[in-house]
């Protein structure tokens, strides 16, 4: 029987510094056969391991539709992420996965999509946004609201011109406080949403960001007329195994690593955000 | 004396001198005593103090930072409170110590043998190294007039067993501890129940660096048990809770006592002597022994 903990060996082929504490790693499989067979959906994640240091879960930040490599964005936080930040092109790491449910791509078809991202929360959404752009005919308007603490903390800045130019797509950038030379919006994400007033008809809002942002964005979206099933989010939780076994990431009876990380608001509301 | 205890507890709660009283109540088995946390006056009726009150409740003080807590404490528990005060883990003003005179508590594991009355039960080992006494620090003392003479007799030589063990050959000693530690399952009950183990993150749980193996193998277990005892040097007041909590019966007190004996011999240091005492390993004497140094 296969050892489910055995990761695939991947090589770091590029490292992009997104923000002062976030780096995006582009990873390429050593084994061509694996490369061929490896498939994932936006919203899923991998357990990325630095050999000898440990593993940590990271979502795919690039779309499976444009995949030469696997991209993961990593914020410097603890032991594994610190070790990852020390790494450079040519170094090898391990990945196992993909894990989790991913975004309900089929359910989103034919809908107006509102993407609400805060900080590194843009990572899984970037995967989905680019997936939607590559399957443009399946989706209606795309509205992207991306907030960060400061302009320095905005992720994937080279994508913005592309998104802005894409058909029926709008991008709204916001930072928490006014800065010099900042021409886009100012204010926290819920405030900005109230200003933009995105359409709620035939729409799905996909929210990803820090817990505090999610907490305050949900009521705003409900107020804007989004129904509970039409708000989906991906959750962060301490995960070790990614297999629904190690027992720490559950919210009620659901395991974030296996039954999530993508949940609808109605699911979470039922669970009272029970940890 | 339970009457006096309850009366005082009610008074403290009523006058809002404390927000909570940590004490003992009769356990579900009707014999042993378990911790109880009392916030309302009427609950004070559950408070007891007798030979079954084995636990060192000072371990719970860290759970209520900033709150005014009343705590029922016997001499050994008071010494751990003193160490906690020394180490700035408590504010003296935040705690109200209801001292109880103690002449020994029973060995809890003997309850399992079906014996129940105090006469049949052995006194806990820790009490044999302690003189029946009044706590050295308290805000209110509940005296135990009626039970005074039933107390345990202190051993003449509290470190007799340690010395006996020291006299064994190195191989024998290793074999003994290898066997004992091999049973350790690393449940960390010894740590969690210890009032002195308040580190925000124990070295056993740290990963940057990993100090020793977290696997329950010989190396990991030996390192854990040695460092646990070492980190208690000059701090362990021999309340014996670690040994009592250990589910697999490792004689942890024998390690603690060894250090206790050594620091007494080497540095004339006794843990929990007073609030102003300096921590053993953060001070030194010019004339500390160094015969072991080449």
């Amino acid at each position: 029987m296969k050892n489910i903990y055995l990761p695939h060996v991947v090589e770091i082929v590029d490292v992009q510094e997104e923000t002062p504490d976030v780096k995006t790693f582009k990873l390429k499989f050593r084994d061509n056969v694996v490369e061929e067979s490896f498939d994932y959906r936006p919203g899923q994640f991998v357990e990325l391991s630095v050999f000898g240091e440990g593993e940590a879960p990271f979502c795919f930040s690039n779309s499976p539709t444009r995949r030469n490599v696997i991209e993961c964005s990593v914020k410097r936080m603890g032991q594994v992420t610190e070790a990852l930040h020390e790494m450079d092109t040519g170094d090898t790491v391990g990945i196992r996965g993909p894990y989790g449910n991913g975004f309900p791509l089929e359910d989103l078809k034919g809908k107006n999509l509102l993407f609400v991202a805060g900080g590194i929360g843009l990572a899984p959404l970037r995967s989905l946004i680019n997936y939607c752009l590559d399957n443009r005919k399946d989706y209606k308007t795309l509205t992207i609201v991306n907030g960060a603490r400061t302009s320095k903390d905005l992720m994937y800045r080279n994508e913005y011109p592309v998104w802005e130019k894409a058909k029926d797509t709008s991008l709204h950038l916001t930072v928490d406080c006014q800065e010099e030379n900042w021409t886009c919006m100012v204010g926290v994400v819920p405030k900005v949403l109230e200003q933009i007033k995105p359409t709620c008809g035939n729409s799905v809002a996909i929210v990803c960001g820090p817990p505090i942002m999610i907490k305050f964005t949900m009521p705003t979206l409900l107020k804007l007329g989004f129904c509970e099933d039409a708000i989906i989010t991906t959750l962060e939780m301490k995960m070790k195994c990614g297999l629904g076994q190690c027992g720490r990431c559950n919210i009620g009876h659901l395991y974030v690593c296996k039954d999530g990380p993508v949940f609808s608001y109605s699911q979470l509301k039922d669970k009272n955000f029970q940890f | 004396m339970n009457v006096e205890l309850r009366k005082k507890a009610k008074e403290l709660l009523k006058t809002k001198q404390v927000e909570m009283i940590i004490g003992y109540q009769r356990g579900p088995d009707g014999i042993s005593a378990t911790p109880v946390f009392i916030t309302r006056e009427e609950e004070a009726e559950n408070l007891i103090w007798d030979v079954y009150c084995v636990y060192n409740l000072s371990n719970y003080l860290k759970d209520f930072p900033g709150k005014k807590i009343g705590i029922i404490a016997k001499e050994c528990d008071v010494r751990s409170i003193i160490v906690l005060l020394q180490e700035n883990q408590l504010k003296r003003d935040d705690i109200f110590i209801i001292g109880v005179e103690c002449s020994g508590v029973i060995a809890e594991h003997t309850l399992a043998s079906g014996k129940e009355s105090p006469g049949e039960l052995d006194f806990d080992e820790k009490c044999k190294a302690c003189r029946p006494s009044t706590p050295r620090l308290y805000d209110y003392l509940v005296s135990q007039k009626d039970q005074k003479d039933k107390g345990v007799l202190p051993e003449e030589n509290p470190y007799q067993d340690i010395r006996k063990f020291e006299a064994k050959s190195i191989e024998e000693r290793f074999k003994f501890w290898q066997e004992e530690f091999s049973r350790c399952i690393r449940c960390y009950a010894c740590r969690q129940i210890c009032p002195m183990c308040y580190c925000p993150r124990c070295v056993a749980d740290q990963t940057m660096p990993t100090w020793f193996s977290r696997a329950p193998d010989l190396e990991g277990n030996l390192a854990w048990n040695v460092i646990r005892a070492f980190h208690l040097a000059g701090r362990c007041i021999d309340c014996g809770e670690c040994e009592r909590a250990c589910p697999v019966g490792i004689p942890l007190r024998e390690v603690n006592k060894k250090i206790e004996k050594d620091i007494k011999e080497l540095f004339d240091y006794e843990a929990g002597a007073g609030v102003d005492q300096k921590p053993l390993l953060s001070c030194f004497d010019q004339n500390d022994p160094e015969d072991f140094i080449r």
Partner: protein
Amino acid sequence: MLKSITKEDFFTRVGELSNDFEIIGPMELPLKGIFYQSILNTEDLYLGDGFAIEPIKKFFLEPSTRLLRYPWKNEPGVESFSPPERERIAIGVRPCEAKGLVLLDSVFDPPASSDLIPNSAPGAGKKSSNRAGSTYQDAFYTNNRKRTIIVGLACGRPDRCCFCTSLGVSPAGTTGMDVLLFEIEGGFAIEIITDRGKGIFGALGKELSEEEKKLLTSVNNKREDLLEKKIRVPESMDTIFTSDYWDKVSRSCISCGICTYLCPTCHCFDLIDERRIKLRCYDGCSFPHFTLHASGENPRPTKKERYRQRVFHKFDYFKINFGENLCVGCGRCIRFCPVKIDIGDIVDKAPLSKKR
């Protein structure tokens, strides 16, 4: 199939089997208690009334399992440890523990899913499927299960912490057993349950006489009555999730790992990279760091949330996912809790309000 066998014959047979099998069984260490160990001399095998401190779980979901190694060389790489192959017989396993293994099977050895890469993830937004547990088979656990024959021992003297009957386990239950032994005068009555069991003990002993059978049945019928402790296990605990009750019952908890480590069904673990080896070690929901994020955030910051998680996992979540309680009533967590927290009592007395 029920047979009787003398103690002598039984131990002789075990001695023979030890040539081909590793024998695991309870062993009594004076003053320390009873421990499941690898048995080298059959005389060491303890088949009395006492219970082992640690459950048999430790031979299946080991306290630490070496999963991977990263060879120390310039080119980093990773290799898998292959699970050991030697076949084993675990003797003296109690019905509650065997049931515990069956419960663990649903986590670590679930019915094989078609593949490891879910092509059709359950759609968010839809009603999620009822079975939310793991669908991944763990090679190490599965292998340990496969290579081990379970020879159970019916309980004759449950203590005041035992409450298995409240959870549908019988002191003479056969769930998860290949063979079950009943102590009878002069030896054992031996019930062969599976073919594997038959393979090792099938040729042994003589048929039980009708009289003996009757006697055994009457003894077995009384076994359940020996249990003093009976608790009411609610269908769902959903309604008291936010109750103050959890704060109250968890106050004296010291956040140690005794209850989880000694539990035959608790299976939370940690993955640790240590000295270039990836280990899987026990972990427990009672530890404060269990859910601590690298960012410092902790969804279960106090004993209240942690103890509630333990109770809910056992008596609510697992039931939703797998239809059973994740508790077999073995009483270990009660017996060994240093502050005498009684999970049975807590579940029994839970102030369930009417369904919402």
